[in-house]
């Protein structure tokens, strides 16, 4: 039961048990691996590719959030190659939609913005896509701005796995992917939505926000979502 695994992260032995992912092991040992789509308490999906790590003996990079810790594993969390790939992933996220930080409710509290700063992204090397995207204001309390969505799917999982309502899904493929509520019904008309706001708290950017806040005013409490799972004993 309490079998321990021998796992090294950046050369150091860290406590690990079967069933834990590399990211969980690293975070428990205070080793920093950046991640955007991962949220404690939700199923890991490996969507954002920021937590890519090098594992000794494996020729390709692996996402730390979906890679189970294994006995004898040696993981490298930072290298020039990883840093360069993470920067590319971040820049592509900025280029894909319209992330205008200057007018965003979440500026200063945004995980994407903070990750860009941590990684020294001072500009985006790729041409911006400038898609024309909708803002769904139909819900009485919340707003969804597709311009700021990074398709991390944290809202989808928070709603389906914790609230049990499963209002959200990702529709379409590739660059046409969009977050949809109740099979493309406007959020305000979604009958399964309980208006609990877990999706809003789980959202890492300003894509989902409470109405009534101005620029830089929307702070989020994602730890509430994580704590709910912990209180249920991980169920």
């Amino acid at each position, binding site marked *: 039961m309490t079998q321990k695994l021998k796992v090294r992260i950046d050369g150091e032995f860290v406590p690990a048990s079967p069933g834990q992912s590399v990211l969980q092991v690293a975070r428990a040992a205070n080793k920093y691996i950046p991640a955007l789509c991962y949220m404690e308490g939700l199923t890991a999906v490996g969507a954002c590719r920021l937590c890519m790590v090098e594992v000794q003996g494996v020729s390709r990079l692996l996402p730390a959030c979906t890679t189970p810790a294994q006995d004898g594993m040696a993981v490298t969390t930072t290298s020039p190659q990883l840093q360069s790939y993470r920067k590319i992933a971040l820049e592509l996220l*900025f280029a894909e939609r*319209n*992330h*205008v*930080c*200057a*007018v*965003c409710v979440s*500026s*200063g509290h945004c995980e994407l*913005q*903070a990750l*860009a*700063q*941590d*990684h*020294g992204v*001072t*500009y*985006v090397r790729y*041409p*911006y896509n*400038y*898609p*024309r*995207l909708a803002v769904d204001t139909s819900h009485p309390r919340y707003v969804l701005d597709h311009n700021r969505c990074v398709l991390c799917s944290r809202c989808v999982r928070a709603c389906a796995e914790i609230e049990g309502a499963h209002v959200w899904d990702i529709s379409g493929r590739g660059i046409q992917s969009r977050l949809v509520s109740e099979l493309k019904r406007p959020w305000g008309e979604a009958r399964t939505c309980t208006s609990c706001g877990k999706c809003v708290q789980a959202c890492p950017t300003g894509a989902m926000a409470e109405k009534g806040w101005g620029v*830089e005013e929307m702070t989020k409490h994602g730890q509430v979502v994580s704590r709910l799972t912990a209180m249920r004993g991980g169920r």
Partner: protein
Amino acid sequence: MGKVRLGTCWLDGCSGCHMSLLDVDEGIVAILNKADIVFGPLVDAQEWPEGVDVAVIEGAVSSQDDLKLAQQARARSKVVVALGDCAVTSNVPSMRNGIPARKLLERVYVEGADAKPGIPADGVPPLMKKAVPLHEVVKVDVHVPGCPPKPNAILLALSELLEGRKPDLGSKLRFG
């Protein structure tokens, strides 16, 4: 050693980055001890002069005039600095990019006009299809993000450049 020749201009921006530049307080004295401002909103020169050492450019590139000035500044300057989010990311000016320029002008100047509807053509430069960041039209050497960038970040960037070094802004600045 002669003084560094410094030029500044704003394209499609709100002048906020220039305000932030002025907001360096007494730091401006240190800058002026080392540099001559040879072009800028408060300088009388009509055209970007030859032989500029450091060009500081605010704003996105939105119109044919912006493009011309950006290209001229690039050709006549050794180092080009993109100052602020509009120059770095195209920021707020790019929010029109999903709408064709013609449609946009009609909406504002024809449908939205109370008197004398009509798209202005006299004395105003034609809009480009999209407002783009400075580095999409000319080579940019230093990016200083922020809306506006903090005065001390501008001061740090300029102090380094006036000493002939490339500033390492790394993780000191964020978008927005």
